């Protein structure tokens, strides 16, 4: 689905010089966000990476108007979201935010009604609410036999899917996921991330994936924003970001394990491409390098 240029600009979320100070009166007040500027075009899959306390979660809460910036402006569809006449409720239906450990927000007696909570709050008709809930649950891969179960009886991974569906059911145009894999086992992590990627390729929804693990995002996203100390340090495509892996290490982040393996191989004389970010590409590159070795001989 291609939109005319003007329309696309209208959809973009723009952050201009946003700063945020926690509790300015307290003895230990500090700047959680320091002069942040960025634009989020429609349909992009963005990874937001930062250490604990780098301000990434705070920034995400600004994007749907839950936290008001101390200074600076945020525009959605070309309009300032802090303007007095701006409908915050509508903004929240367009910019869906899934919090960290979203399963802690479940409260209804069964899975289905919990997912209905969001669309119901939008004031939609019953039929539409249920249609959206069904669609959202299908998108995150929750089987129908679980619809009538209590959300508290589900496994950790399933609870999380239900919680994500609760936000998806509002049919947001931008979906923000704050550490969606926190506390899951490797299998659950992979499943959730694959599901998110599938969602993105199928619906072309704009996704911001917040994480502190490079391995989580490297394979999936079009663009990475690296945050440190309330500032944006890097904002680029993944392979360019991982070139600076030494600097990333200083921030306690590092690059994906693939990058390290490739660099070590190259240092030891194997001519591999070190800019690669996904495991599949890396495997291909290593095989190629090995083949060239075999032909020329050591």
């Amino acid at each position, binding site marked *: 689905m291609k939109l005319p240029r003007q329309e696309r600009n209208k959809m973009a979320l723009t952050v201009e010089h946003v700063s945020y100070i926690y*509790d300015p*009166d307290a*003895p*230990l007040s500090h700047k959680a966000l320091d002069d942040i500027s960025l634009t989020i075009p429609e349909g992009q899959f963005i990874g937001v990476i930062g250490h604990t306390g780098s301000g990434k979660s705070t920034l995400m*809460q600004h994007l*749907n108007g*839950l936290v008001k910036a101390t200074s600076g402006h945020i525009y959605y569809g070309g309009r300032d979201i802090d303007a007095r006449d701006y409908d915050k*409720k509508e903004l*929240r*239906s367009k910019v*869906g*935010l899934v*919090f960290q450990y*979203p399963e*802690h*927000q*479940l*409260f209804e007696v069964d899975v289905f009604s919990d997912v209905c*909570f*969001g669309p*119901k*709050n*939008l004031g939609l008709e019953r039929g539409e609410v249920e249609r959206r809930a069904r669609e959202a649950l299908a998108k995150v891969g929750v089987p129908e036999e679980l619809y009538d179960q209590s959300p*508290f009886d589900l496994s950790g991974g399933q609870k999380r899917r239900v919680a994500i569906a*609760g*936000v998806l059911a*509002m049919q947001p145009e931008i979906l923000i996921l704050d550490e969606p894999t926190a506390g899951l086992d490797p299998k659950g992590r992979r499943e959730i991330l694959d599901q998110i990627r599938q969602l993105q390729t199928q619906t072309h929804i704009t996704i911001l994936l917040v994480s502190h693990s490079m391995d989580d995002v490297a394979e999936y996203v079009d663009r990475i924003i690296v945050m440190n100390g309330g500032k944006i340090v890097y904002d680029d495509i993944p392979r360019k970001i991982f070139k600076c892996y030494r600097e990333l290490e200083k921030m306690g982040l590092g690059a994906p394990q693939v990058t390290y393996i490739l660099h070590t191989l190259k240092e030891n004389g194997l001519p591999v491409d070190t800019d690669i970010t996904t495991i599949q590409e890396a495997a291909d590159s290593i095989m190629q390098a090995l083949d060239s070795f075999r032909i020329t001989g050591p």
Partner: protein
Amino acid sequence: MLRDITLGQYYQTESVIHRLDPRVKLAGTLLYIISLFLFENIAGYIVAALFLALVIGLSHVPFKFMVRGMKAILFLLLITVLFNLFLTPGEALVSLWKLTITREGLHNAVFMALRLCYLIIGSSVMTLTTTPNHLTDGMEKGLRPLKFFRVPVHEVAMIMSIALRFIPILLEETDKIMKAQIARGADFESGNLIKRAKAMVPLLVPLFISAFRRANDLAMAMEARCYHGGEGRTKMKPLVYRRRDRLAYLCILLYLGCKATVGILL
């Protein structure tokens, strides 16, 4: 919004008052509150104000933090003043329709308001300068004699310190769940009383679940470290009276003496 509750909030800084033994501060606050209700006259209130000002000065806590605690009782204060002002029988000063302000009423209203302010600020000084853990430590040791009467002092102190410790955690949790539900379009602020009460369900259910989960985890962690009540339990930093604590007791006695003298003589 929820963070405006000063009572029970510690202000981190370095001062003599912060370093005092919590027992001194507890006893001091109690004596101070009692002193407010004895010997009512203007001079007595001036002495009480001076003493309070001295302690606040020594505590290095900005005055506005003490006033923050007052916000919570503003309503109570208002009611007290109004009731005293209009409902005390005596010599009439001003008459408006059916309401009469009497000389005694005015007197009572002013002094009651002052007393309440002093009381709140006085106890705020204690909670602002003492960590909750210290406070319960002090209570446990100070109330130890009650053990003789089979009062479970240690258990009560432990319950209190856990409860106090959980206040900020649960506040934070409330804040998080509230935000998460607002992000799903929940509305906590508009509508009539019934609608608002209903809107609390998506907040309260997750909050209770999380509180129970935390309580379970804590109980497990305490058991894992062989907690079995206060019997034979030692402390890493046992409370010991030092020179400054004795001096502080002396100051409190001096204040009480002053207040009594002023109260009786003037």
